[in-house]
């Protein structure tokens, strides 16, 4: 698959088929992704790949505490900047509204929206969940390095015919994640990445996701 097709066909997939993913494929992807760049060659990314009974154990543990609502949340970082303005504030809600519009769930129907949000914590039915962590002493530029690696993984997964969904939502259940998998205390848990074969026929995998026009993002000088 060429890069353009991988970039254009990658989207956050929120419904997966019940079809396992071969560990050998994941190893191949991760081996290649080691060639991602990082400032000073720091390579700050670390991950736990969960499948089968180990994944089921985490999903069950989190399902137990979901009814507690916000009281069970234990994120180790701010997922959203506390003060967003202008175009950025508008973008935050655009994708949610587009998704719920596609699902035909109005704003008033909080119960249905909450139920869909809860599907995050089933990894949207994906057979594999990657949990990403990094040493706490890593600063913002090393988080950028992690992002470069994550996108490399996501594009290589497309090439293997696989789909993914990057899920910062998992950060709210860091405590439960730490109870299930061995993430060192001196590491911070960043995000999950659901991995599997996307069910692209589902409405939730088809709604158009907005992007800012190019001239809002980049300017040109000297061409």
């Amino acid at each position, binding site marked *: 698959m*060429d*890069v353009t097709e991988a*970039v*254009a066909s990658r989207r956050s997939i929120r419904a997966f088929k019940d079809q396992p993913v071969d*560990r050998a494929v994941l*190893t191949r992807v*991760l*081996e290649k*992704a*080691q*060639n*991602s760049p990082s400032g000073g*060659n*720091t*390579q700050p990314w670390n*991950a736990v*790949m*969960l*499948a*089968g*009974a180990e*994944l089921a154990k985490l999903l069950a543990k989190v399902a137990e505490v979901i009814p507690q609502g916000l009281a069970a949340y234990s994120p180790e*970082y*701010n*997922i959203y*900047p506390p*003060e*967003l*303005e202008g175009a*950025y504030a508008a*973008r*935050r809600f655009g994708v949610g509204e587009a998704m719920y519009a596609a699902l035909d769930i109005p704003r008033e129907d909080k119960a249905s929206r909450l139920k869909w949000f809860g599907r995050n914590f089933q990894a949207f039915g994906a057979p594999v969940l990657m949990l990403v962590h990094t040493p706490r*002493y*890593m*600063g*913002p*530029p*090393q*988080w*950028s390095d992690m*992002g*470069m*690696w994550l*996108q*490399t993984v996501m*594009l*290589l997964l*497309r090439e293997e015919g696989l789909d993914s969904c*990057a899920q*910062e939502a998992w950060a709210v259940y860091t405590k439960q994640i730490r109870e299930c*998998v061995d993430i060192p205390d001196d590491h911070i848990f*960043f995000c999950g990445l659901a991995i599997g074969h996307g069910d692209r026929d589902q409405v939730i995998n088809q709604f158009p996701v907005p*992007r800012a026009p*190019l001239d809002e*993002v*980049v*300017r*040109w*000088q*000297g061409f």
Partner: protein
Amino acid sequence: MSKSTTVSQAVLSRRSIRAFTDQPVPLDLIRQIMDTARWAPSGCNFQPWEGAILTGEPLRQLQAKMQASQPQDPKEYSWSDPEVLPECLARLQQVGADMYTALHVERADKAGRADFMARNVVSFDAPAVLMVYFPRVMGSPQWSDVGMWLQTIMLLLREHGLDSCPQEFLSMYSKVIKDFLGVSDESHIFFCGIAIGYQDEEDPVNHFDRKREPLDGKIQFLGFE
């Protein structure tokens, strides 16, 4: 270098290029790449990236201003202080050692090393440079989003036979760059430059071996058959 069409080829052939030819980068092509890169993911779809792409006379003017300036103190942000990145210091030193070996610059040759470092300011003579900045309110997860966008750009460049070098180095001249571009220093942080062009395949600096950690120790597999 030839085009790396597939994702795998692009990932494996991408490396930091530190010597470019003077072949210009066509605007149509770079626009197409930047347009496609808009589809990079970001948490909550913030798309927290902003940038300016310079070439020709404006790029030369900005580089002249940087050359006439001192690296700023305090820094725009901390790159990777060796004191706080003990496990990473060795990797950083290894890249430096491998690079200078390829260039035949001795460890004791401080002037030779300084000359090469100074080539960062002119982005290794790349014909175009993407200057990357974004609002200061963005936190670590949004820096990750910016990274996803940057790697998308670097891989798309490979698909079209172009090369790149991400340069956190340029943040030493953040205020000069923002002033030149008319970007507010109060509201925006400058992150890095991305040198863009066609690599000089003859130059040994583009060929030394890059080391990467083995997967074991970085990645655990649990629950797989």
